[in-house]
């Protein structure tokens, strides 16, 4: 018989690997194929296991934990339905480049391919929505595979990595030794930008007459906000953030023109369109950001693009100066070059450019009607910003409320705004808030949601109760899938096909049934007092579910209709 005194099970090896990676939380749900792993979790104390109520929420919570901390998020699910339930969460993280390691159980090795109970080809199912995935076939590969998974997830352009582990492997015995380093001949992310290209870019930036900085999620994920602020302030140039990039530059700063894109501000979109030098940093010119590429094209505009992922460069828009590299490193190098350069930005040209921008700002495109007796959703977000001192972590679901949150909650710090930008996954809001609250137990965490989105993961109210997560749920309840309704109003002749939310539950009673505090707010004058109460010390330890009955007809403005150009916005006054 083998000597087992120095050997441990595959499940124990996995747990030890997670300890070595300094994992603090594992979000998961047990099941047959992961019972050995759960048995090993039972007798360990290094990380906390957070039991969710649905595997989708496990991945979302791990994803938000990562977004709020910069660490790799970890989720654990069983084979078959546990694995497929996780897929929406994985795809959500993939689209927003969030580093995750998702461990899925698999049926025992001899049963693979036999249509065994709870078998699904997880590697095949997730292939299009992961950065990489592994099926472990030998217990001696467990440690190296986990090491690689964390390395791949967190380096280069980050993303989710799935590790599928058959049940028999977790029961076998082997010696444990965790590799100190990992080397892969096929994976060497570029970190430092090409110095020649950076010099060229700096020269162009200093010679710009109508410059514009356009920054995305890469600045947040790459922890480059400090360098970006330094660069932007030194240059005195206008800046806009994408939905994913909010907080990368302080939203309350006068140089910040607000978010750009389909629901971006008039001034940000016009400046994007009319600038002569566009400096794109960690952003990817996606369809919701620049609209129609042909309309976006300008002969007299030069584009500099900094991104860690070469395939993001010149994908939708041809750029003139590509710089592949880690955003933080490239920005630091740019700052050094600017520091040393004797040339200064063209003050006269810049003054004229700012004058133009101020004229666009005068449109006051985010103005909304405050004279009614009905609660305006924008008003709730503005009051939330005031009551929380602009310092809360805000998660959102997907739809109108998401856009209002992005427009009216001015994020001054990175990693404060947690939402599904790329995939646009309804239902993320509550599990996102769980992940954030666990990462920052003392912080104010608000989940801005709608009555439709919240119902997609509402079972997590139970998880919040179990783990004492005092999230504040801000439901902007307009009894419609608001964004669907808006498109039906604009583009489908007011035919509101299946977008009305009938038979809504009594959210106050529902919250109470889960052991939380429920509030219903129906008058504008009650908005601020209710928010103050929810965020008061008295309710600090409690989850408060706030059901704001808002204007059913309110639309998100400005709006660039699908397929149109950035300067073809509809403003509210035009309707």
């Amino acid at each position, binding site marked *: 018989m083998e000597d087992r005194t120095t050997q441990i099970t595959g499940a124990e090896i996995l747990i030890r690997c997670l300890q070595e990676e300094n994992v603090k939380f594992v979000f998961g749900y047990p099941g047959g194929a992961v019972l050995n792993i759960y048995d090993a979790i039972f007798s360990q104390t290094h990380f906390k296991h957070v039991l969710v109520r649905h595997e989708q929420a496990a991945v979302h919570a791990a994803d938000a934990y990562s977004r709020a901390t910069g660490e790799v998020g970890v989720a654990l699910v069983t084979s078959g339905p546990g694995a497929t339930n996780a897929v929406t969460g994985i795809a959500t993280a993939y689209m927003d480049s969030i580093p995750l390691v998702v461990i899925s159980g698999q049926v025992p090795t001899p049963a693979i391919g036999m249509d065994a109970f709870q078998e699904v080809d997880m590697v*095949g199912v997730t292939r*299009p929505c992961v*950065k990489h995935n592994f099926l472990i076939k030998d217990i001696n590969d467990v440690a190296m595979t986990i090491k690689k998974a964390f390395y791949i997830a967190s380096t280069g352009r980050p993303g989710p990595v799935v590790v599928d582990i058959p049940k028999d492997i977790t029961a076998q015995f082997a010696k444990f030794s965790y590799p100190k380093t990992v080397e892969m*001949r*096929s994976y060497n992310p570029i970190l430092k930008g090409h110095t020649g290209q950076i010099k060229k870019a700096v020269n162009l930036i200093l010679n710009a007459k109508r410059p514009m900085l356009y920054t995305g999620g890469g600045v947040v994920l790459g922890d480059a906000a400090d360098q970006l602020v330094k660069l932007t302030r030194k240059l005195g140039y206008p800046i806009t953030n994408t939905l994913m990039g909010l907080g990368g530059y302080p939203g309350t700063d006068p140089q910040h023109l607000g978010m750009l894109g389909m629901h971006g501000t008039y001034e940000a979109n016009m400046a994007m369109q009319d600038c002569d030098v566009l400096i794109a940093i960690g952003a990817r010119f996606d369809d919701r950001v620049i609209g129609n590429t042909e309309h976006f094209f300008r002969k007299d505009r030069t584009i500099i693009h900094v991104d860690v992922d*070469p*395939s993001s460069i*010149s*994908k939708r828009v041809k750029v003139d100066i590509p710089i592949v590299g880690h955003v933080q490193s490239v920005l630091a190098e740019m700052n050094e070059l600017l520091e040393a350069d004797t040339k200064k930005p063209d003050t006269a040209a810049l003054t004229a450019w700012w004058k133009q921008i101020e004229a666009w700002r005068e449109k006051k495109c985010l103005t909304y009607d405050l004279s009614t007796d009905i609660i305006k959703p924008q008003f709730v977000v503005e009051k939330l910003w005031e009551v929380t001192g602009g310092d809360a972590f805000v998660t959102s679901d997907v739809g109108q409320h998401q856009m209002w949150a992005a427009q009216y909650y001015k994020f001054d710090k990175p990693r404060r705004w947690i939402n599904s930008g790329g995939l646009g996954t309804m239902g993320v809001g509550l599990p996102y808030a769980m992940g954030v609250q666990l990462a920052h137990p003392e912080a104010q965490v608000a989940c801005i949601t709608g009555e439709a989105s919240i119902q997609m993961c509402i079972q997590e109210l139970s998880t919040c109760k179990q783990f004492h997560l005092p999230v504040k749920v801000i439901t902007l309840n307009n009894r419609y899938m608001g964004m669907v309704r808006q498109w039906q109003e604009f583009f489908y002749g007011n035919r509101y096909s299946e977008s009305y939310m009938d038979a809504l539950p009594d959210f106050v009673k529902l919250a109470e049934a889960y052991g939380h505090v429920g509030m219903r707010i129906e008058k504008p004058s009650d908005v601020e007092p209710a928010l103050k109460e929810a965020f008061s010390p008295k309710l600090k330890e409690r989850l408060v579910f706030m059901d704001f009955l808002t204007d059913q007809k309110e639309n998100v403005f400005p709006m660039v209709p699908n397929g149109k150009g950035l300067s073809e916005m509809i403003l509210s006054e035009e309707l």
Partner: protein
Amino acid sequence: MKHIISLLMENEAGALSRVAGLFSARAYNIESLTVAPTEDATLSRMTIVTSGSEEVIEQIIKQLNKLIDVVKVLDLNDGRFIERELMLVKVKATGTLREEMKRMCDIFRGRIIDVADSSYTIELTGAGSKLDAFLEALDKTVILETVRTGASGIGRGDRILKV
């Protein structure tokens, strides 16, 4: 424009499906795809024949490079290269056709590798365009069956794709 892309990748289960999946997910064309292990058993070499605008080809190369299992990618069309494909064609060989098929085979420098009472099997190697030309030169009714390997390509002279 047609491009021939060569790549080296880790010889691991599922690596082929990652490449094939990438092409279908991003709606890139595949005319042919061949893959086999190299003299280094840990590496597979793949040749993909695709077509698209310069922008699309640039994206294909970048997306291939992004796959974790892919070690090196080379667009053979960036320089001088040789393309070869093998085709086996079974043709009718009865009566006067027996002589005619032999002659066609010789003209295209093919070889008859199987002889039966009423058919020949011809082996032909060359660039894809040469194989196309051979098929076009034959009367459609004499072709009983064809099988092609898809193109393999290699750079000329000093152009070497190696780890």
